């Protein structure tokens, strides 16, 4: 399926290549470079590029292009999903997925790629199986290895590979047994000029950090499971239980993982925590404009809105901004044309305001469109949908684990049109 993989950085250097079948010359990437040039922004590079003899399927992540070469028909999502999995594995192993870390760990990267695909077909993508086959690098281990000459490579087949629960490692042992669940909800919304909601939905995920010994069998139940109408689960979750009883029953992977994600699209359920009063205008003459933004709380369920940031992608003609913020700091980057206003905590008594003038490139026509505002915020201890975890039960092991649930609401793609 996947024939070869090339990693290319944003400046167009090809810094790693791996072939799973016979070698394909790296000149095949020229078609990619062509498309890359045409697209201008790296985001705009088309994911699928046909060439006379091959097809290139590309993802762009962490400033790296993963360019895979395909020779025959294959579901493109198959390849895309796999490439993202590769990037996630790198992140998992090296802490971040960047050109430097990949170059520094090129041997491990190569060993990983060798294990993940056989003849272009995925072989082992579950991170705990990989970690048994190839141990992630740590400073301690690399020191021990140089002294003792032992290796990073597992000698036996990881037990998970053969079991029906490949996501869990065998023989897990902790002195402190703990299980934490973070309910993270992101509000995706588009508000129009007048502040009315054009579109709003909630994207939720439950991230788990489970450090439990042995083979625990967990059951997580909600106070109001009916809220969730569209869910997707980690493979460990027993779907039939969910269907019949609306509880999440699973044998967890060891460590951090995403248990489930859900989607609440019914608009009346989505509370919009803040409102934005804005007035951005550009004058016909004088190459200048005015900006006045006020942010205030709307439906915050009594919690405080934190980490409030307003980002504005200004039109190209805006040269500089001379503003005055009653709270927080603002920064205008004249190169990227991004105005960033970091407000911090929202104080309902004294609403933060940003006001002042913008100066434009003289002689240029005034911009057609007012830039839209992207809002970022965080509300602790609140799931905006009202979702609540009822209880977590553990079967199969005797000890009493420490359990914790945390709720956070964030702004996802939260946009205010002006």
């Amino acid at each position, binding site marked *: 399926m996947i024939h070869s993989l090339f990693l290319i950085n944003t400046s167009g*250097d*090809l*810094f790693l*290549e*791996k072939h799973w079948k*016979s*070698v394909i010359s790296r*000149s095949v990437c020229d078609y990619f*470079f062509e498309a890359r040039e045409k697209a201008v*922004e790296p*985001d705009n590079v088309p*994911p*699928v590029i046909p060439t006379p003899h091959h*097809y290139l399927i590309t993802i*762009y*992540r962490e400033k790296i292009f993963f360019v895979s070469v395909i*020779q*025959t*028909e294959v*579901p*493109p*999502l*198959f390849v*895309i*999903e*796999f490439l993202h999995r590769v990037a996630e594995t790198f992140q998992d192993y090296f802490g971040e997925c960047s050109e430097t870390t990949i170059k520094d760990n*090129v041997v491990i990267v*190569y060993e990983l790629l*060798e294990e993940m695909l*056989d*003849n272009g*077909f*995925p072989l082992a993508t579950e991170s705990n199986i990989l970690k048994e086959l190839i141990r992630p690098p740590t400073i301690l281990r690399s020191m021990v290895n140089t002294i003792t000459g032992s*290796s*990073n*490579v597992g*000698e036996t*087949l990881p037990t998970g*590979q*053969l079991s*029906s629960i490949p996501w869990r490692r065998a*023989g897990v042992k902790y002195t402190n047994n703990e299980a934490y669940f973070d309910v993270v909800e992101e509000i995706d919304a588009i508000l*129009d000029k007048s502040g009315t909601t054009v579109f709003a939905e909630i994207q939720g995920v439950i991230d788990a950090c489970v450090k439990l010994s*042995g*083979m625990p069998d967990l059951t997580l139940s909600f106070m109001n499971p009916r809220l969730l109408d569209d*869910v*997707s*689960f980690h493979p460990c979750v027993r779907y*039939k239980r969910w*269907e019949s009883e609306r509880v999440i*029953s699973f044998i967890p992977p060891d460590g951090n993982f995403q248990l489930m*994600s859900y989607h609440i*699209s019914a608009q009346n359920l989505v509370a919009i925590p803040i409102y934005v009063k804005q007035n951005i205008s550009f004058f016909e003459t004088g190459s200048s404009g005015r900006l006045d933004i006020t942010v205030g709380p709307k439906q915050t369920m009594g919690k405080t809105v934190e980490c409030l940031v307003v980002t504005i992608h200004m*039109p190209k003609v805006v040269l500089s901004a001379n503003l005055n913020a009653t709270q927080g700091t603002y920064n205008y980057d004249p190169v990227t044309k991004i105005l960033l206003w970091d407000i911090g905590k929202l104080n309902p008594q004294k609403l933060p305001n940003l006001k002042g003038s913008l100066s434009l490139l003289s002689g240029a*026509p005034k*911009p*057609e469109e007012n*830039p839209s505002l992207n809002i970022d915020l965080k509300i602790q201890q609140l799931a905006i949908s009202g979702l609540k975890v009822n209880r977590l039960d553990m*079967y*199969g092991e005797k000890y009493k684990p420490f359990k914790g649930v945390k709720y956070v609401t964030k702004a996802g793609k939260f946009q205010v049109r002006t």
Partner: protein
Amino acid sequence: MSNNNVSYNEQVSLESGVDAAQENSSIPASVSGGLFSADYKKNEDLKEMLESNKDSQKLEAMKRIVGLIAKGKNASELFPAVVKNVASKNIELKKLVYVYLVRYAEEQQDLALLSISTFQRALKDPNQLIRASALRVLSSIRVPIIVPIMMLSIKEASTDLSPYVRKTAAHAIQKLYSLDPDQKEHLIEVIEKLLKDKSTLVAGSVVMAFEEVCPERIDLIHKNYRKLCNLLVDVEEWGQVVIIHMLTRYARTQFVSPWREDAVFDENSEKAFYDSEEERKVEQVKPYIMDPDHRLLLRNTKPLFQSRNTAVVMAVSQLYWHLAPKHELNIITKSLVRLLRSHREVQFIVLQNIATMSIQRKGMFEPFMKSFYVRSTDATHIKILKLEILTNLANEANISTILREFQTYVKSQDKAFAAATIQAIGRCATDISEVTDTCLNGLVLLLSNRDETVVAESVVVIKKLLQTQPSQHSDIIKHMAKLFDNITVSMARASILWLMGEYCEHVPKIAPDVLRKMAKTFTSEEDIVKLQTVNLAAKLYLTNSKQTKLLTQYILNLGKYDQNYDIRDRTRFIRQLIVPNEKSGALSKYARRILMAPKPAPVLQSAFKDRDRFQLGTLSHTLNSQAIGYLELSDWPAVAPDQSVRIVEVVEPVKETGAPVHGKSKPGKSSEKFYSDSEEEEEEEEEGSSSEDSSSSSEESESESESEENSDDSNKSSSSQSDSEKKKKTLKNKKLQQQKPDGKDRKQKNGNAVKGESRSESESASESSSSESSSESGSELDSDSDSDSGTDQKKNTRSKPVQSTLVTKQVEKKEVSLLDLDDFSPAAVPSPKSSILSPSLLSDLQGLSISPTQSALQASSPVFVPETSHELLHRMTGKGLSAQYRFTRQPCIYGNSMVSLQLTLSNSSDQALENIHISEKSSTGQNIHRFNAIERLEPQASVTVSMGVDFNDSTQAANFQLCTKEDEFSVSIQPAVGELLLPITVSEADFSKEQGKLLGMNESSATITMTPENVSSQSVNRKVVSVANLGVIPSSQENIHRFAGKTVSSGCLVLVSVALKDPDAVITINTERTVMGSMLLRQLKTALTNSDP
């Protein structure tokens, strides 16, 4: 094209330049201190390192070589030095050598042959990982000479015990096929064999091989179709995608179309499918009956909509799109919309597929219209796709919303997107006649926009719109003519000129003026504008020659000498056509009709209109052109082919060999442990009632044992047919729930294939070991070697599937009764087991007929033997070996002061375990009587042995090492205090006498409040003897119960009396061992106050 080539070459040279630079700069960087300056010297150095005899040096060298390979540099000259290390013991070094070999073997075929024998040897290695990786490399090195060896190895590996090796074999099939397609016939044989494999691990890979090698051999699938459907949920995600695509293709050839007009489904039918779809359909006298296999596929793929893998969700979506009845399609929508939150690239593909779907079925996505609203932060190609979908979704009802949204988009800073929006507005205008005028007016307003691209696009779209109804819009044309001077985009200028020419009769005054202006600027115009100018001139010449004759002449003269040959051609052609001269033929007479012919209006339609000719979710669909290797989705057959081809003679339990390792998985076991208390008690209750009602007891036990067998298997078969039975099961479970609280937990196990199945398997294993002749336990008694027990076990495991298949046939018929009885099986199984395997045959008889009153008469034999086994070693920690122990409560035959234990060892790996024994050293100093070493334990087999431990009357755990040939596992047995006793019988008088001696600090007592159900003498007796191995002393007083026993090691008396004073009870324990006394008291307290049955 020529342009392309130039840039291509440039890039190559640039590339190589960069490369060379890197080469030079990297040398000092990678070799410390810059000792070596030239490339070949560096390789010399690597060679030296490879030839050193230190593994660390070699490893270092290999790591650097892999670094070179990763950068795409040539390291082929090191081949001889590297290949020597292929047999290295160091596994990491070996792996890196493998990487190198696979990369360069093709170039150095002769040398590569040197390594072959090493792989052949490794193929026989006992370690499955080594076998598998040897096969991987052997099949990857692409040296044609070794094709026969590869073929042989693949055949061998396809029958390997390890599913992992079989999976590797499936991958190797594709490699061999691409190396030598002539092997196809042989490979198909292997594929056929592997398709029958029941391991979920193999399924995905072999279907992949099937798709690559012989996708046309659809007949190979028939027999495996149902199995694949049932396995699908458990296959790893990548395999799921491949299998789903293959099954889609299969279904389209085997089933009739569910899309027929007359196939009207009523709303409830979907729910009823689980019951008995066929019946239902027949009842309704519907002309279309869906093949049950077709339904099976749809039903089994449905849970995959919830997968976290986007490729799986997309695959199921396309399966539903291509196979499901139209009214069931709505399930696709939500899942696909959910994927839109994923990565940019995923969005792109999903949106493309939604675009195709939304053309055919607007209704599906209309409720989610707002999910396709565009954000300013989206990438351009995403924006354009969303726009496409919004346009597809537009109808009379929502057009105003959509147009309002479009208004925002038109103002976008992303001009390419703004232009696309204008086209979308144009499409809406033609599609929905109500808004045509509104759209046109809006577009005209855009003509005064400051941005050129917006204006130009508007002009082009207006041109297209006007073509449909030109007469009413002469004012728009006039307006455009006015704007003409300000528009610089050539396409827009050309469009206006074309409009003028085409409708010059509507604007007779303006058109000549425009031509006049064009004549002035002709030379500086773009080619496309020049062409349209010539056109305009020609048309005006024909309609209004009086005013424009000279102008036309002038323009034609300019065009005649233009640099562009197209324009020169056109000019010459037009001149001949319209200006009559002696040379011009008959054509000029028709000039007017040629040039002014009414032209059909262009149809504005979606770019995705014809994409549905490709299967959704495929590369071909994305590219809108057939990719290499695309397999056409056939049309539904008019008449369904024979359905019986899919019938497999016996419905085998699916996961019998499915995942051997988890045969006795921990969850199964631990859950057993978890629930066992209640089960045990339940069993007792059963017995209690049967003793009361003794006449029916024998009958009951008989039916019970029968049902236990059946239900055991029904558990197993339920995993294969789980879905078809699901509904019934839940029904059943509801029933169970009413019966007892435990039912709910049981249901959970059923719902979950892993747990439920592993549980049943472990049960069946224990059952089979118990049903095995008692000769085995006899041999243990004689302390013979267990050499034959291994083979016995083997036989046993082989016979198991047969047995179960027999029963599965019955399952269907007997279902209801079976499922009810399912409940009792775990309780009923162990009792014969314990009796047969316990060392003392005499007391066995008692084990079989436990009845408290009866056994009290017997001296020094246990009143009650608990069935609870405790885990000693989990299969995960034990690398496949698992061990459980239970207390037999028999006097130990190995020593008077020892506690007798029974150990059940099972092998859940896929290799035989050899030489299982307890190591000599015991860490805590207890005296342990070891069982005889078990020479060999076959996979999936289990063996029961007995051993003795002298706990010294202490509850301190006995720690020892359980060893196999390769490994050692530290395990420990922690006895409950009640197990450190042996029952004795004394007369009531003696009891009182002894009790009198043990007063003061030797006595401990407690008052408890009894729950009403514990008050009966039977329940008190039962509770006490289940906690501690005590004998019941017949009592003359009804409200006092007495029990007696002695400690195993020291033989101290332990006297327990329970005096009932409604509602309280006083427990008194008299013993010299006060510590044990108080521990026992605590346990009795909890046992007697617990209210559960």
